[in-house]
């Protein structure tokens, strides 16, 4: 079966990995983090003269509890940035645990949300389902998919939602996804109506998203926890993503070494056979 190293029990890898992920939390290393262009475009698109006080922005929690470490740091920075510019933020999401993610955001961006007023500066509409139809309907008539906010208050009774009901009334959308919901905002908001949009999702969406940022579909993009760390650098407030970067470095180094060792084994085996 080839190189003898090939027969190591896979649990050895798993223990090495799990321990290796913990070590940097106990004694941080602190590698420097370079900021990517796509992340800078995202940050510049939600700060300074890109956002006017009173502009309405949608933040879509397209991720569940398991993807908090990957998506939440980036969303936290973007929520802080928008609130500091005086924007009105609509929070929503397609996961059944979206309420937990909302409460987690109130905790991770605590000062900004404590200084803001619910119903005037931000609102939590809660859970949505129905795929592309739901997001298309959100653009045409918000009240058909959200007659009330998450706390059963009619939208008409919420100050910031008085004259907000269609895409016309929204200045931009930030979608943080593990799945397809960002794609629905692209096909039902950005494509038909040109509403500015950015993706703050998991790293895998970096492969489908970067070509879209290059083509102008997204005004910016943050790729996974690395993007979250870059955003924390840009806003100048280190958080969970920067803390996790050392563990990411260690684990990424380990996997590259594993691939190299495996392929060296393959070459040696071919040499032995020929």
């Amino acid at each position: 079966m080839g190189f003898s190293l090939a027969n190591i029990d896979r649990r050895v890898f798993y223990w090495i990995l799990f321990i290796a992920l913990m070590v940097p939390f106990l004694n941080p290393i602190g590698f420097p983090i370079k900021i990517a262009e796509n992340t800078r475009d995202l940050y510049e698109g939600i700060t300074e003269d890109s956002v006017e006080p009173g502009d309405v922005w949608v933040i879509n929690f397209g991720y569940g509890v398991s993807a908090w470490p990957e998506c939440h740091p980036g969303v936290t920075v973007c929520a802080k940035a928008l609130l500091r510019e005086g924007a009105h933020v609509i929070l929503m999401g397609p996961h059944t645990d979206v309420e937990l993610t909302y409460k987690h955001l109130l905790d991770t961006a605590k000062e900004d949300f404590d200084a803001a007023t619910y119903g005037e500066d931000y609102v939590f509409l809660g859970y949505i389902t129905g795929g592309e139809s739901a997001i298309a309907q959100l653009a045409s008539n918000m009240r058909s998919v959200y007659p009330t906010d998450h706390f059963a208050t009619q939208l008409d009774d919420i100050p910031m939602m008085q004259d907000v009901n269609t895409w016309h009334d929204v200045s931009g959308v930030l979608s943080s996804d593990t799945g397809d919901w960002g794609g629905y905002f692209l096909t039902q908001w950005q494509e038909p109506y040109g509403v500015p949009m950015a993706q703050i999702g998991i790293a895998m969406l970096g492969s489908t998203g970067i070509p879209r940022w290059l083509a102008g579909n997204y005004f910016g993009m943050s790729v996974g926890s690395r993007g979250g760390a870059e955003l924390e650098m840009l806003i100048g407030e280190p958080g969970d993503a920067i803390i996790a970067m050392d563990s990411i470095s260690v684990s990424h180094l380990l996997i590259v070494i594993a691939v190299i060792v495996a392929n060296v084994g393959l070459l040696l085996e071919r040499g032995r056979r020929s």
Partner: protein
Amino acid sequence: MAIIVTGRLMTFILMVLTFIVMYYYMAINKEEEYNIRTLPAMTAIPEAVGRAAEMGQPVFWTPGISGSLNDSTQGPQVLAAISLLEYLTEECAKAGVELAAYCPLPDAMPLVEETMRTAYLRQGKPEEFNVEQIVFISGQSAYLSGVLGYFQRAKPASNILVGGFYYEAVVIGEAGNTIGAMQIGGTNNTHQMPFLVATCDYMLLAEELFAAGASISRNRDELGSIKGEDIMKLILAAIIGVGFLLGAAGITIVADALGW
């Protein structure tokens, strides 16, 4: 006032052109026989069954956690996987090789059973079909444990991992690799393609999965629409080529037209 909404004209033209081209090949062009090109993964299926016959070990099929049949992205992949199952079952029945089908999809189960029963019937061996060959396990983790357990027990000689996979692709692919099975993979879920490419000997990439299904079912409408797709791919490739050359020279007529 333009009839078509400004900024959506070219989208309309491309869509209608695609419909017309497809309709021509589906319903008008009656004489031409359409064939899917050689797909190495398909020609490998008889080889996979032959290997199992030599080693006296079973063949294993599973479509991944996919989604329900009426899911517009996962449903078509499950149907293509079941078309492949039909072909695989006939090959196994011919060679007298045992075939195990692990399916985590409740609404696809009747179709899987019906497909295998018909395939054995077509090979004149209805008595060899045993419904116990089909194992239903729901829930991604339970499904994973079940498949990995089967690999340990039965050590299948060949695995057919085709359908709408999620993260179980890397687990099953790697486990199959570990027991030395010959593996044929296929999915239209981009996020799982790297893992099946790395862990399988043969791979149906994206649309190749649907083409493989159509090459077995010989469904005239499917083959006609795939032929229509090919014509559109040639047209778009030509547009990119011409547009690139003009664009390099600073002439943006093609790019402008695409923006209408």
